[in-house]
């Protein structure tokens, strides 16, 4: 009775819905910058305390990626590490299953 790819279909609908929502908001909100919520949170803190954002100095010294491109690269590296782990394990399980099929 249950359709085999029910979850897959639901996932596709959710992702497409999400994309549609994004296209819609980005078309009606012309001033939207799509900045990180982290950054917005920080500027709210500055607003509440009445201090300039520059006054919040790191308590511990911190290296920051010198440009957005480099930051994007390191984020891609992080995703790649995760992707390799996931792919490796699914391959490992697939191989195991082939050798000794589960009843």
């Amino acid at each position, binding site marked *: 009775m249950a359709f085999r790819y029910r979850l897959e279909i639901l*996932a596709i609908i*959710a992702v497409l819905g999400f994309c549609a929502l994004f296209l819609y908001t980005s078309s009606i909100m012309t001033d939207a910058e799509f900045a990180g919520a*982290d950054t917005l949170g*920080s500027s709210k803190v500055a607003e509440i305390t009445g201090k300039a954002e520059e006054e919040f100095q790191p*308590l511990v010294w*911190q290296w920051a*990626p010198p440009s957005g491109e480099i930051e994007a690269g390191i984020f891609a590296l992080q995703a790649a590490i*995760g992707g390799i*782990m996931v792919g490796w*394990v699914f391959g490992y399980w697939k191989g195991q299953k082939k050798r000794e099929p589960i009843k």
Partner: protein
Amino acid sequence: MHIMEGFLPLYWAVFWWIIALPCLVFGIYQLKKVLEADREALPLLGVTGGFIFILSSLKLPSVTGSCSHPTGTGLSTICFGPWITSVICAIVLLFQSLFLAHGGLSVLGANIVSMGIVGPLAGYGVYRALRDSRVNMYLTVFLVCAFADLFTYFTTSLELALAYPAEVGGIASSFILFMSIFAITQIPLAIVEAVVLTLVFKYIVQLKPDILLRLKIFPEQKIIAARSES
């Protein structure tokens, strides 16, 4: 969900570290125990941890015109509980504070508490409540992932509100203010994240149901029923 380096006063940063550290120690102890008991748990840990790495590296746009990260902690919470999840989150957050200037070493404690402890604990509560109930297994996974994600951002808002109460209205009004930034942005992300992780869980059920049974993640009849369906 990161609080940026320098954006928590020293005493709050220390306070969250004091909460985070015992949880991490307990998580490492549990991790050792699980892996000693069953070496086949290691690949499962790789998949669930891998998804935390992938999802928390993505910054997705949302309805509020800003971007935010999914957390990806739900799967690991279901399979290994909140404390081991804290350890994986600590690794990811350390990576991000060292190489990406997302978060920082002093606020790492606060970020671990939100993403690695309170979020997963909320998800774990949902999991324990629904595990043996008649609720569909995949729906349970979906709800756990969504709750873990949303509660992470509730906690970030609370952490900031506690440190920065508004002049008028105090902690409550600045909590609402921070929630308006974090929570609304997060709702669509949490739903998409939870759907994707549920799909991943389905593939684990299909490929490696024996590890789920051995770790007693869901009752046997639920897993068998899910397998015969697909």
